[in-house]
Each structure stands twice: as C-alpha cells, then as structure tokens.
C-alpha cells in the first residue's frame, strides 16, 4: 500500500513569491491534515479536511495561506506572498475518519530567502 506522498520535496523562493504544495493521501482515507513544522519544533496543525470539507482551518496563519481538497482526495496548500517566517517543513497526513492514527508524508521543506 502506497503511503502519503508529497511534492515537491524542496522549495526555495524569495519573499513575496507564491508557492503550492501538493499531497496525495493514502487511498481510501477520508481525513487529510496539513501541518507546519518549523526547524527544531514539533508539527503544528494548520487545517484538516473530511472529504472535501474543511473541518477546522482556525490555525492557518493568515489570509496568505489557503488549502483545498476539491474532490476529497488530493489536496493543495498554497502560500501567497511568502515571508521568511514561513520557512519550515510542511507535512501532510491522512487517516480514516474516527481513527486516531495519522499517517504522515515525508514533507516539503520550504526556504524563503
């Protein structure tokens, strides 16, 4: 069974540029999570979905961040006008709704110069 996949693995951009991260969850998992993990910190939940619906996006840092999951499968996290403070690894995880184990992808490492 394929795990959670994410792309790209790395991204480097200048402040003010936009970037998108893509996540393909484990097949059949209806719940999808996005986390931000700054260097030497634990993951911090940004948003999570059940199918295509946003369940909680209260932790998205600002209007510059958005996440969608239009067909309830793959998901995209986008940062408009990135800032140096957005430098972090962005993790995607998936699970079955009601199950307590999340399965994580390898992450996308973002560096904003």
């Amino acid at each position, binding site marked *: 069974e394929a795990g959670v996949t994410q792309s790209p693995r790395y991204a480097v951009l200048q402040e003010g540029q936009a970037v998108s991260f893509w996540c393909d969850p484990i097949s059949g998992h209806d719940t999808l999570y996005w986390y931000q993990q700054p260097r030497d*910190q634990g*993951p911090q939940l940004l948003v*999570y979905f059940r199918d295509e619906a946003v369940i909680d996006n209260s932790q998205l840092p600002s209007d510059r961040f958005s996440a969608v999951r239009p067909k309830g499968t793959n998901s995209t996290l986008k940062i408009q006008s990135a800032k140096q403070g957005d430098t972090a690894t962005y*993790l995607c995880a998936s699970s079955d709704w009601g*199950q307590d184990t999340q399965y994580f992808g*390898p992450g996308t490492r973002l560096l904003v110069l």
Partner: protein
Amino acid sequence: AQSVTQPDARVTVSEGASLQLRCKYSYFGTPYLFWYVQYPRQGLQLLLKYYPGDPVVQGVNGFEAEFSKSNSSFHLRKASVHWSDWAVYFCAVSLDTNAYKVIFGKGTHLHVLP
C-alpha cells in the same frame, strides 16, 4: 492551556544501553497521549498511544511508555537501544478522543553511539 513539554532537546546513549525520553503534559481532563518517531528524511510514524486504562503501553520495536497522572508525565522507555533508533521522537496530546487535533512537543533528538 493544553501543552506538551519535552525537556531534553537531545539525548545521547550507547548502543545496547537503556533509554528514557521524558514528556510532561498539561491537559484539563483525560489525556490521550502519543509518541511518534521521525526517522531521517521520512514522515512521522506512530510508536504507541495511550488511552485511559493500563498506565504502561507497549509499542513497536520494543518501546513502551508509562502514563503518570500524578506527575503529568508520559515517558518513553526502551530496554536496549539499537543504532537504527537514531531519530527524533515527539510526544503529543490529543484534544479530542479521535485525535483530530493533536499538539506535539518540540521533539527529542536521540543519538546512538556505537
């Protein structure tokens, strides 16, 4: 507010030695607690989880953890460390019974000496 504290940013042990990684939590109510491991260039993987019941929880690869309500702790242990255990270990507490919203500690880097 709910939180998790891992007081040791880095722990170094020799291969074959025993291990304890410390975790303290702050939570109002009944905590659901987890330990995850992050191997180099891989995603986080669940080691074990605690739900109210037996305070000692067994996990994968010989890991276990003990819940203490009086000490607000959930320390991770292993009797004999292997070089492949070199990784970052995260303690986490769930804000709900289904672990939709999980708060992670900052992690403890485990280094294993040959």
